[in-house]
């Protein structure tokens, strides 16, 4: 398969197809209004988390996103730019001559992922808020898109997505929920489930604005430090909920089925990681799905999470078909790395 035309220019434009001018303006206005509202509601969470001992990587992330507390309408209209701080996926990688090389690599990954996974689970990178990526095989995607699709495919292989669609309504908890990309894909696949995110307020800000813009009818709820109990009131009316890390010991979402961690636990101290996993266990969350950060596995960082998981959950095999087994990180794979890359864990009854 050719990935570039004879001139060497990538077949697809680096930026996702633009929406119409009118629509773009309308979406930008929606995003800005969402932002203003959510910023005011999320600001107090920074104070609520003042005692959290962030790791250096987490602090760098917070610092990188701090400008969003004083964003302009233009920067919110280009919110996907924040991805470079959160996941390291930069729009600039999708432009210029070197993009052809990246596209060649990602096209192969896409092909393999589609070969093994359910294509209907793959949501295109939305062309709003500065969305970007390549267009191949009828899909518009970037590295994050593939990574989240891989997570959904693994969850589907583990027969968990079907669980998430069932009644009574389930809650999914994403620990330190990145820029909202996984939540977007997950909600598209399982709109029935409530999606709870905890983590640094800066991440919650960009995630909530992104999700609130993409799903204008979605019902968003933000933790109020002064009224923590109100957070759980009428939970059936919540699509996305956002709480600070300091709220973790008090989390009480009804029907918690699955806890998702895309490399966040790896960055925490063992005590903080344990607090998260222990709380999931206390809440009778059946499954914890944990993935190393891009660029992992690095045993020095990954080992902190495994003992924590093993204390409360049974680590469990995931479908790691040859070739795709180690591809989630879309980085170099090593023999034996699979267990450190994906960890699907089932709740222990006798912990």
């Amino acid at each position, binding site marked *: 398969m050719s990935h570039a035309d004879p001139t060497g220019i990538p077949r697809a434009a680096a930026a996702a197809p633009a929406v119409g001018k009118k629509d773009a303006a309308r979406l930008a206005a929606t995003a800005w209004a969402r932002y203003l509202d959510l910023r005011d509601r999320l600001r107090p969470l920074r104070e609520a988390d003042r005692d959290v001992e962030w790791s250096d990587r987490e602090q760098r992330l917070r610092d990188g996103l701090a400008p969003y507390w004083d964003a302009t309408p233009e920067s919110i209209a280009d919110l996907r730019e924040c991805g470079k701080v959160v996941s390291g996926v930069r729009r600039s990688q999708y432009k210029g001559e070197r993009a052809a090389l990246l596209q060649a690599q990602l096209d192969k990954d896409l092909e393999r992922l589609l070969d093994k996974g359910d294509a209907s689970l793959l949501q295109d990178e939305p062309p709003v808020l500065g969305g970007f990526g390549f267009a191949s095989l009828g899909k518009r995607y970037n590295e994050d898109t593939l990574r989240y699709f891989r997570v959904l495919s693994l969850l589907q*292989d583990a*027969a968990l997505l079907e669980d998430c669609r069932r009644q009574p309504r389930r809650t999914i908890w994403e620990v330190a929920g990145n820029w909202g990309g996984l939540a977007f894909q997950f909600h598209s696949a399982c709109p029935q489930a409530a999606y709870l995110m905890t983590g640094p307020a800066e991440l919650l800000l960009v995630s909530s604005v992104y999700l609130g813009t993409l799903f204008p009818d979605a019902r968003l709820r933000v933790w109020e430090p002064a009224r923590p109990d109100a957070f759980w009131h009428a939970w059936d009316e919540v699509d996305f909920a956002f709480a600070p890390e300091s709220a973790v010991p008090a989390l009480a979402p009804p029907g918690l089925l699955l806890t998702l961690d895309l490399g966040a636990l790896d960055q925490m101290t063992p005590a903080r990681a344990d607090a998260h996993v222990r709380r999931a266990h206390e809440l009778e969350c059946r499954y914890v799905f944990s993935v190393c950060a891009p660029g992992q596995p690095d045993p020095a960082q990954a080992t902190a999470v495994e003992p924590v998981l093993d204390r409360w959950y049974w680590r469990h*095999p995931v479908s790691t078909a*040859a070739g795709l087994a180690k591809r989630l990180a879309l980085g170099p794979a090593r023999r034996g790395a699979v267990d450190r890359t994906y960890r699907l864990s089932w709740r222990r009854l*006798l912990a």
Partner: protein
Amino acid sequence: MTTSPRVVLGMPAYNRPETLPRTLESLFSQTCLDFALVIVDDLPSPEVAAVVDRYRSIFPRLHYEANTTRLGMVANWRKVFERARALYPSAPYFAWVSDHDLWHARWLEELVAVLDAEPGVVLAYPENLRMLPHRSEIARKEFETAGVTSRAERMRRSSRFMLAGNMIYGLVRAEALAAAGVFRAVVTPDRQVLLALSLFGQVRQVPEVLWYREILRGFDIDRQRSVFFPQGAPFYVYLPSHLQHWGVLTWDFAIRGRGRPAFGRLAGAWYAAIQLANAVVRQLVLPKSGWRRALGLRAADPSPEGD
């Protein structure tokens, strides 16, 4: 007075104390808990007994029985079923479970739903994930006879295409399994009983991965003979397996007439003949068939026993 559960799970245990806790927890975490678990241990040890004791508190319908003499795999599988029937004679459904596999929490719920909804189905089983020594993978292999009302056609399809190792841990109607003869003293007894079962109803595959199957080694018929018959293998188990299966089917249904009232002796002989003819064809075309192995045309593969 306690009511009988609808399902009895029978676990023929054999010295896996290291895997047993996780296995038991995957069973006790089922969304459908309307079952009893009967464990018959063919190599009792204090370690296994201790594991079982730990779980009695959270699952009272747990029965454990240690064999005083080793029975071997075939006899122990039979005993598990017989104990299950004796303890819970009115439970309509039964499944064998191993002491090392894992089950998705919805496994039992989904399979019970199939048998409840489809009276013509005698066995329901899910897709599985194979837990190999160094990796795990989903090997999608489809086989079902749902909707096939002709016994002869079900026997033909089963003889040619059935994957016994994937099906034997499915949920069965206990009455049908008893009529089919449970496990017999032959090699690949799972295949034999599933062939017999095909005469009593249809098979439905649930298209979800709800069973995690440990596979430590490939199929080895010599090992089967030693594991199945620890007191010494009878002479006939050195015959080709399809001949052994044909012999049992003929004995049960053509001579003893065990298919009645559903079908008579003549029909039983016909079904056994269908099995033999199709099993011969299967043996000729199967990539991992005995003759290929004997001629060295097939390298060892990790395909599990019974497949």
